[in-house]
């Protein structure tokens, strides 16, 4: 009996010890191996919008603001913000004592030089800089932005790191100008520093021990950014079978972008864990507003829109229903921008109505050139279904399949196409949708769009902006510059020995706050 009591006591002790171990604070150490779908191009966030580049770069570089879990912009390198003169002047106080990876302290000169380069040569910078009169350093830690007129989305644009205004040291950006910043000068303020790129093998980051991050619990991309791993290796593993097998075999700790058809089996596999991305991507059919059969022919575009049954497209291209949502609102439900305006034309699959509208549009079976890329499986699969639905509704679809580089080159010539397919990443402000730019291929630039876009960007009152966006969405369903297929949620897998991966915002997995068990 005493032996049994003793054994029971020992068991209780061991269980308590195990409980304590699981509740233990995460410890530093280890090399995290991230199996990526490809190699990233330059990590210079000013010039590229590649999702993979952002996934890696967000650990190295930071901007003035970032997004919390509610997609609200909050300070990152900024400490406080004061909007004055009815929105025409923004005074930003920087956090003091923030160090770059080269040991230099961040100051207003670095911020101004970085923002100026982003505004001049950056991918998304000109959207903001069209409205900026000048930038000024008020002191070592204070930056002033003078706007020509109030420009409401300024903080969202400064917080969006993808193609966004990360802050480099002044001398780095002044040397680089339009050229991507060389690897030797990937110097940021983030929790990890760039060590090396070995083409085909990895991009290596190491923990930055002098990192001065935000205080407070992690909240979306905001809050503390605790770096536990000694190193992170981003390894290009293009074959999905290899990424899955690699995590199962213990060769990788994390693998991104796994196809939908494996979702069910991986969810029940004890050797891996799945995580579905909160931020959706969206499939878009772009229509040519500049030339050809679609130019100014809104009825024909509406006919094409009502002919498509988007849930069939999504089911075929993505698979399990947990990974897609036949949502016609351009902004997802989790954002305040969600709107049902114009949705009566979405996801109809109404062949008769499509034929009627096409007839009213004067369509007589003319060839409609529809370009799609074979480089993205989701694009190709979606377009196979769309083309079939359109053919059944009587449209003469000439489906042209190219590799991505060729498609991008061809779509810049309005004479070569009528429709093309692509996808769009999550954006926190609708002004960042590519079709909101008059110069993006598709060239949607009508007077009605302009009359709504002006108050949309100049109104500082957020509730009014949301109302105007709803009207813009209604106009989109009327003039149909693009047709949205739906929201698509990518999912990734990771090793059960990784802890801390509880939620993800936007679309770029962040590896701070993670550690090995």
């Amino acid at each position: 009996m005493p032996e049994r009591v003793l054994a029971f006591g020992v068991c209780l002790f061991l269980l308590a010890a195990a409980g304590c171990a699981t509740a233990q604070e995460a410890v530093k150490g280890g090399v995290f191996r991230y199996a990526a779908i490809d190699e990233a191009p330059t990590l210079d966030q000013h010039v590229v919008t590649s999702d993979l580049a952002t996934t890696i770069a967000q650990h190295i570089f930071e901007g003035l603001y970032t997004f919390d879990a509610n997609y609200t912009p909050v300070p990152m390198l900024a400490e406080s913000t004061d909007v004055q003169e009815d929105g025409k002047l923004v005074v930003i106080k920087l956090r003091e004592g923030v160090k770059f990876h080269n040991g230099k302290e961040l100051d207003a000169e670095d911020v101004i030089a970085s923002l100026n380069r982003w505004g001049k040569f950056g991918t998304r910078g000109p959207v903001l800089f069209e409205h900026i009169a000048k930038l000024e350093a008020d002191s070592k830690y204070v930056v002033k932005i003078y706007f020509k007129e109030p420009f409401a989305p300024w903080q969202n644009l400064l917080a969006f790191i993808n193609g966004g205004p990360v802050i480099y040291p002044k001398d780095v950006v002044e040397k680089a100008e339009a050229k991507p910043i060389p690897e030797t000068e990937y110097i940021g303020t983030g929790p990890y520093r760039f060590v090396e790129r070995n083409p085909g093998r990895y991009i290596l980051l190491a923990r930055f021990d002098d990192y001065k991050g935000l205080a407070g619990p992690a909240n979306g991309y905001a809050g503390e950014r605790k770096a536990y791993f000694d190193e992170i290796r981003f390894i290009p593993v293009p074959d999905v079978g290899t990424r899955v097998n690699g995590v199962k075999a213990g060769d990788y700790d994390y693998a991104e972008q796994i196809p939908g058809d494996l979702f069910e089996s991986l969810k029940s596999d004890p050797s891996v864990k799945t995580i579905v991305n909160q931020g959706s991507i969206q499939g878009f059919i772009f229509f040519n507003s500049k030339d050809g059969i679609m130019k100014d022919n809104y009825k024909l575009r509406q006919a094409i829109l009502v002919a498509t049954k988007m849930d069939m497209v999504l089911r075929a291209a993505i698979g399990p229903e947990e990974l897609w949502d036949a949502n016609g609102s351009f902004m997802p439900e989790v954002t305040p921008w969600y709107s049902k305006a114009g949705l009566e034309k979405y996801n109809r699959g109404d062949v008769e109505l499509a034929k009627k509208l096409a007839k009213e549009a004067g369509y007589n079976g003319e060839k409609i050139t529809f370009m799609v890329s074979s480089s993205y499986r989701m694009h190709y699969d979606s377009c196979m279904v769309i083309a079939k639905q359109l053919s059944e509704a009587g449209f003469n679809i000439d489906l042209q399949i190219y590799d991505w580089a060729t498609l991008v080159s061809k779509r810049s010539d309005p004479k070569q196409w009528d429709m093309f397919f692509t996808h769009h990443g999550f954006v926190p402000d609708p002004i960042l949708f590519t079709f909101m730019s008059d110069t993006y291929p598709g060239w949607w630039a009508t007077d009605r769009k302009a009359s709504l876009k002006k108050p949309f960007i100049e109104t500082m009152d957020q509730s009014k902006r949301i109302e105007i966006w709803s009207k813009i969405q209604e106009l989109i369903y009327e003039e149909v510059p693009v047709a949205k297929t739906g929201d698509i949620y990518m999912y990734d897998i990771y090793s059960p020995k990784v802890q801390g991966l509880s939620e993800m915002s936007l679309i770029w997995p962040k590896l701070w706050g993670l550690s090995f068990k």
Partner: protein
Amino acid sequence: MLSYVIRRVLSMIPSLFLASIIVFSFIHFIPGDPAVVMLGDMATPEQVQQLREALGLDRPVYVQYIRWLSGILRGDLGNSIFFHQPVTRVIASRAETSIFIALISMALIALIGIPIGVLSAVKYNSWIDQALSSLSMFFASVPTFWLGLNLMFIFAVMLRWFPSSGFPSVIESGNWSNLRYLILPCLTLAAPNSALIIRLTRSSMLDVIREDHVRTARAKGLPEWKIILKHVFRNALISIVSALGFTFVALVSGTVVTETVFSLPGIGRLVVESILRRDYPVIQGIILVIVLLYMLINLLVDLSYAFLDPRIKYS
């Protein structure tokens, strides 16, 4: 012999020059732009143009060619547009994998293919020959990605004997045990290629076995093993060596599927990825290196003929 080698080496120069013109012009005729690929979907035409100018891609093709050629004459293959590193460095980092893959696979191919081919020919039409021929037909027909993924699943995921993918550099780390990363890929490559060498060895041996000098050797009462090794195998080796030479170059330059399945940083994958990215300097550099490699292997194979068959002389 020496003057022959010198002549052959000199004759490579115009061939390489011609190859450089063809490669350069063909690549620049393909639609697509590296600046567009790099900047991504959101870039405006103005930003693409800015980057094209910064990279010198806005200049006429012939100007770009002259700049590239003058760089080559100075030993500079230019910089990768995608990696922002010298092309020589990018190729060198990938060449290590490809050369190790080629060497290990070649050893496996020769060790498996030649003895089985010889055995098959010696046991011509027996059940052994038929079994070996069927097996070689099977391995010659199996898709590489299927074989690779299955080997990976069995030996990496289930048994955990070998790593599933990747290849950490042996040269950089000095760690020769990293070669274990290449065992599964090399087995994947060796299977179909060994099957081809088995069939080639068998047919070459059978051709020689029927020749008069073999019959004479047998009539003289020489032991059978001596006839097979000295009189048959040595003569059959000429075609086997040719095949092995070109298999080697193919393994260095074109094992795209295996490199992709096992996520190996090799030359084959680099070629395909560079074409998709329109990374002109890398594509041009690699193709020139592969053309040069083909020429050198061709020369070595030709020289080996004289060694294998004393009747062949180069002057």
